[in-house]
């Protein structure tokens, strides 16, 4: 009996070694079009499409994990998953804690949305932003009063009900919200460029995974697939990758639409 159990144990061990562990990627699912829960109840969005393509090219088996935004970094650090693709901007502050791949979306503009276009968003204004985002940090430093919410959706709700004078978030997130508000919401002031674009967040101790994913992103940039995915998920005015890897307008970019 004992022998049998031992044999079973070795079998399980070798089986575990032969199979490469899947890479677990976390996303929030509450930040369309970057990541969202579609009506089937699955994760969907730009992050997910890019992630799947990266995994295909790097020959990794990937699994998606839903995780709330406010605990998304701690859970990466305690190895509950291996990567974050949740519309996370590359910033110096985050770089001290985790590693990023090169960006898979050029530095995107953040923008203020408010009930009227001449709203004050500087000194003395109350501006809503999602907790622990670069936008929240920017508002705190801008002299405006920061009103923090756990999800990006609540920031827009706060503007609608007048609790905050403006919401500050990624422009690509606010774009459909403003467009579909029937003129209720409008843009305020100039767009603000924050961060170094979106990157895949990876533990500092996990350099192997970072290099693999980096290589995959490079190849996606070269053949224009990444631009194809940007075209699929974002509107016309968004930024695309130029031949040298910097952000360029759509007209100057090489775009390969996704296969399906």
């Amino acid at each position, binding site marked *: 009996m004992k022998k049998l159990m031992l044999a079973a144990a070795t079998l399980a061990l070798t089986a575990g070694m032969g199979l490469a562990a899947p890479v677990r990627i976390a996303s929030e*699912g509450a930040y369309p079009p970057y990541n969202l829960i579609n009506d089937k109840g699955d994760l969907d969005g730009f992050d997910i499409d890019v992630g799947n393509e990266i995994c295909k090219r790097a020959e990794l088996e990937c699994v998606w994990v839903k995780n709330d935004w406010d605990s998304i970094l701690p859970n990466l650090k305690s190895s509950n998953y291996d990567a974050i693709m949740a519309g996370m901007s590359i910033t110096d502050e985050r770089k001290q804690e985790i590693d990023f791949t090169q960006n898979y979306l050029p530095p995107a503009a953040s923008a203020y949305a408010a009930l009227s276009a001449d709203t004050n968003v500087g000194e003395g204004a109350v501006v809503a932003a999602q907790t622990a985002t670069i936008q929240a940090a920017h508002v705190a430093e801008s002299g405006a009063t920061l009103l923090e919410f756990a999800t990006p959706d609540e920031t827009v709700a706060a503007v609608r009900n007048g609790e905050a004078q403006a919401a500050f978030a990624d422009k690509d997130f606010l774009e459909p919200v403003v467009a579909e508000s029937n003129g209720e919401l409008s843009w305020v002031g100039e767009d603000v460029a924050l961060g170094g674009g979106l990157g895949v967040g990876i533990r500092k101790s996990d350099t192997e995974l970072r290099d693999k994913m980096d290589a995959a992103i490079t190849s996606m940039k070269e053949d224009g697939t990444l631009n194809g995915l940007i075209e699929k998920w974002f509107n016309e005015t968004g930024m695309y990758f130029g031949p040298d890897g910097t952000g360029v307008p759509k007209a100057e970019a090489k775009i390969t639409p996704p296969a399906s």
Partner: protein
Amino acid sequence: MFEYCADPKSLEGLVWLSCYLTSGTHMQFYASFGTVLLLLAITAPIALLFGFGGALAARSQVPPLRWFGKIYTAMVRGVPDIVFFMFVPIALDQLFEYLRSRVYCDTSVPVRQGSDFVVCAAAKLPRATSPEWMHDAYGFFLAVLAFSIVFGAFAANVLYGAMNAVPAAQLETAEAYGMTRRQMNRRILIPQMWAYAVPGLSNLWMILIKATPLLFLLGVEDIVYWARQLGASKTSSFAYPHPDWRLYYFLAILIFYLLMTAISERVLRRLMRHLTKGQATLAGEAMRKAAA
């Protein structure tokens, strides 16, 4: 779900609503009610067990054990439960993985690399190769454990009080009969204590029900998570665009909890009546008199 739901944008009124309420996300929302009930069903007995251990430890004659029991029972009085929930699951997770890493991994590699907590693949819980449901189940397991530890401390308070309420004369008589402490506990103390413990335990059950919305802080996709997710306003990039409907979803949750507490209250009142029957307590005496 229904055939006619293929193109939601063309639907209107009740038909639209019937499709909306049976979408995949809503199915997961309904299932999350089951998650809450499951948590209650699993946590209650485990917490009772923890409470039992805690109460016996607090009465122990071995000082370290007694101190442990006293501290355990006292902790819920001083510290809000939500504070425990914020770090107990992480602490447990890291503790389990640390212990496993001492067995399965190369022990010369530190688990703390900078601020990263890393153990080798063999010590990972659950293993990275495990199917997704294992990861969900493990997260749920941690939540159950965190709830059980906190509510075990509450239960220990109740049971400790109940054990002290058993008349001293009963225990003295047992001692006079030459019973050992173990025998006294098993034969005299524990059987008699239940009648005193039930009111406190019923109250505890009500507190437990009302603590379940905190599940979403523990990363479990419970009804609060889905209510926030589904109620948030949806732009037309979704199949079922709608404005902010969180109020309605939270009203539904409120009704769920009111029902849960109302039913529990009714059942517990019956149970109490059943238990006090024939007991030498005030309520038992009142019942006897009423019948006579």
